[in-house]
């Protein structure tokens, strides 16, 4: 069992704000990326331009991407599993809310959190999901219905499938490369006989703000327990309980966490509750209904980008603050959390810079199996390349010479 790095308290989309330092994307050292960069030969210790993994579960994504483990768990509250999955070229699954127990998951937003699954291929994700899914009496928000573990069928015929392309997800900030791959994917489904239609999720533009209000509000509540009394960091001040609490929390939380707590408490004040929290819950309902309406109109699965672009260098990323980056990073992913739906990011192809780009599939609630079946078909079609880390792996090159992208059991 290994432990992986993340943004502090899962707040961030770069895995750069953790107390153990930032996480480096293994693709920074891949042959594919280095070849494209055509860097002038630098000194051996030069490592200034490495890329972020995305976040907040970047450590887990990096571990899977670098073949350190078979699978890794992350958390997904606004996209924290799917985002780094896309940037690290791995599969990142967010199950339906209520399918997998949250007992043991340090809560960020109780009504949106789910444990995320990171693997190198869709079959592996299905395997892990089969182990984790099902009712847990310790988590009152898990569904009671029994869940059987499953083996994904290998789809050959997609003619009965209807893929929806939400038009509101075509935003100006979307990189041309990602947009182009998105189109290509849509055409791929169409050419194989699936029905591909444009759909509308009209309240998409309100989603990020709504998410911000609800997220910070729940965060403010969930972080109230960190006072140093029973566990965790405790300051040296003991002149009074209040002073101890204040200093402990000041020392123990980074700026990002403190910022969210303050925002959340503001929204929860009596005079603001109605206008912010209640309003956001109502908007949340509208956003969830957007998805319901689309799925009710015959769409099986939605296809969207996962991220705005491929991974960027750390030095670029930190030019903007966490809040800005989070808003950008979560743009395609957080609406899914608000609606409680399952979604998976599947790596599609390498960018011109030789870096992974992934696309997101969104399914109906509790239809995780169907979602993964479609994802598996897509994965087979696109044949995403294996990361080539021979340069830094030395004698382990044999591992990367075979075709298997995964060490999981094959049927």
């Amino acid at each position, binding site marked *: 069992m290994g432990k992986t790095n993340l943004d502090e308290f899962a707040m961030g989309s770069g895995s750069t704000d953790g107390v153990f330092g930032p996480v480096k994307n293994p693709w920074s050292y891949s042959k594919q990326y280095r070849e494209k960069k055509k860097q002038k030969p630098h000194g051996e210790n030069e490592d200034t331009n490495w890329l972020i993994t995305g976040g907040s579960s970047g450590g887990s994504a990096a571990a899977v991407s670098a073949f350190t483990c078979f699978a890794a768990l992350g958390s997904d509250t606004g996209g924290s599993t799917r985002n780094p999955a896309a940037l690290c070229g791995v599969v990142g699954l967010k199950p339906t809310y209520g399918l997998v127990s949250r007992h043991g998951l340090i809560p960020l937003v109780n009504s949106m959190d789910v444990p995320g699954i990171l693997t190198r291929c869709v079959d592996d994700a299905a395997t892990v999901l089969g182990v984790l899914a099902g009712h847990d009496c310790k988590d*009152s928000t898990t569904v009671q219905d029994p869940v059987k573990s499953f083996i994904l069928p290998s789809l050959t015929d997609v003619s009965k499938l209807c893929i929806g392309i939400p038009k509101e997800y075509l935003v100006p900030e979307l990189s041309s490369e990602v947009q182009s791959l998105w189109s290509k994917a849509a055409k791929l489904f169409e050419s194989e006989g699936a029905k591909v239609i444009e759909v509308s999720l009209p309240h998409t533009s309100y989603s990020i703000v709504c998410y911000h209000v609800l997220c910070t509000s729940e965060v403010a509540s969930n972080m109230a327990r960190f006072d140093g009394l029973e566990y965790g960091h405790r300051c040296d001040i003991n002149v009074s309980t209040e002073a101890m609490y204040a200093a402990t929390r000041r020392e123990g939380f980074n700026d990002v966490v403190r910022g969210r707590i303050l925002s959340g408490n503001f929204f929860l004040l009596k005079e603001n509750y109605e206008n912010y929290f209640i309003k956001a819950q109502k908007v949340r309902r509208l956003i969830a209904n957007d998805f319901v309406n689309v799925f009710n109109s015959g769409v099986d699965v939605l296809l969207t980008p996962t991220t705005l672009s491929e991974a960027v260098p750390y030095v670029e990323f930190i030019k903007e603050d966490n809040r800005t980056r989070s808003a950008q990073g979560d743009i395609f992913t957080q609406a899914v959390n608000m609606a409680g739906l399952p979604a998976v990011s599947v790596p599609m192809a390498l960018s011109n810079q030789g870096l992974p780009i992934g696309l997101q599939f969104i399914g109906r609630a509790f239809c995780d199996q169907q979602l993964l079946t479609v994802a598996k078909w897509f994965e087979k079609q696109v044949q995403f390349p294996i990361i080539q880390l021979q340069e830094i792996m030395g004698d382990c090159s044999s591992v990367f010479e075979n075709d298997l992208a995964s060490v999981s059991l094959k049927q």
Partner: protein
Amino acid sequence: MAAPVLRWSCPARRWILANIDRGPRHGRGSPTGSRSSGKRGQSSVAQQPLATAQKPRKGEHQWAAVVGLEIHAQISSNSKLFSGSQVHFAAPPNSLVSFFDASLPGTLPVLNRRCVEAAVMTGLALNCHINKKSLFDRKHYFYADLPAGYQITQQRLPIAVKGSLAYSVFVGKNRNQVINKTVRIKQIQLEQDSGKSLHDDLRSQTLIDLNRAGVGLLEVVLEPDMSCGEEAATAVRELQLILQALGTSQANMADYEIQRQIEELENGGEILNETRSFDCKLGCTVPMRDKEGKQDYRFIPEPNLPPLLLYDSASLPAGADPQQVINIDQLREQLPELPRVTREKLVQQYGMLPEHSFTLLNEVGLLEFFQNVMKETRAEPKRVTSWVLNTFLGFLKQQNLAVSESPVTPSALAELLNLLDQKTISSAAAKKVFEELWRSGGKTPAQIVSEKRLELMQDQEALEELCQATMEKHPQVVMDLKKGNPRAINKLIGLVRKATLNRADPTVIKEMLERQLSS
């Protein structure tokens, strides 16, 4: 199903004094002006009318108190409201604390079925409407004995609303005129108890014991329908008895607070809208947590608990797992006998006065004691009632003992009353025996009677002879008697009694003497 058992923790109170001008009084029971809403989140922001009103000069106005109450009763269940740790009195500190109780991140609340049943049964016993859907909320504040930084409670939609509590006050010279009153129940909600803080001023530290953190509480909110401390106390006592019949509970408090507020106001002070606690040792109320000023609890719905759904026989889904659902109708059928009914039965069955039935129920264990005595004695219920309520209870009160600490068992008293009933001993002798029973314990009444030679003389002839002899020995007294001196007969009776070593019933002696004299 185990009967849910309820226990008190420190009741919190809201007291508002309404300013009554000279002139017609507002009707009792109707809230005048501002009233306490009973919910900490709301009432603290609610009116503090006395702070803004003109300060009255001493003696200018008459005050009528309007009392509302919030009572927290600790639910006695095997485990806590949302976690599996045990509920136990007087366990070593921090020995009954689960990860959830200590607020370790990643732990989640799981609702305890027994606690829900306790709430529903209490609601039914208090004639409440049971909400088939109720919700849980988080109430935030920072305090060392609240590990999560919030309490899980029911602010928006509690489990039971709009009930009533009937109670009786006794008035009149002999306090035997009964007036029946009602106080409305605003709501009953389920919530978590906090841990305990012990302030050690000597070492400037606070010790936290989380054994109590997370224990289930029933908060019962009474509308301000009571107009004095005595009414409030009586209502609370009746509530306690009801909770006891459904389970157990303990409490005290009331009068002191009203008096204190009146005095403060008359001295130009202001009444803070605050929560006060009764300190048994000091014998007065003291401020609890400082809730001065607006306290914003930043309520949010508890996201880890879905709405609590209850069913009745009509709405119960077909094929529902009985372990997973609660049927209100089923609980209603299983409600035990409530105090009011118990008292009515006592009055009917034993012909006792209503006020006696109240006394029997008001004293913990006394009813059971009484019923056990009744089982083993042939004596008249009226006699048993009198002995239990006067003699027995009197002794208990004098030595500040509970019924459970009584040195006299029901069997012993029953035996004593049988001896009395059979006229084996006189009333006076019985009292002596009782005293001895109390003092020594262990000995049976029969033994004491025998040791102290308290048996009434059974030999009528011997008694006749004694009377005769006594009269012969005291001709002067006989003379007085014949002259018509009323006190002379008592002297004679006294002399005969002495001669019998107090083993003759004075009534019998008197009868004999009079017969002999007249013959």
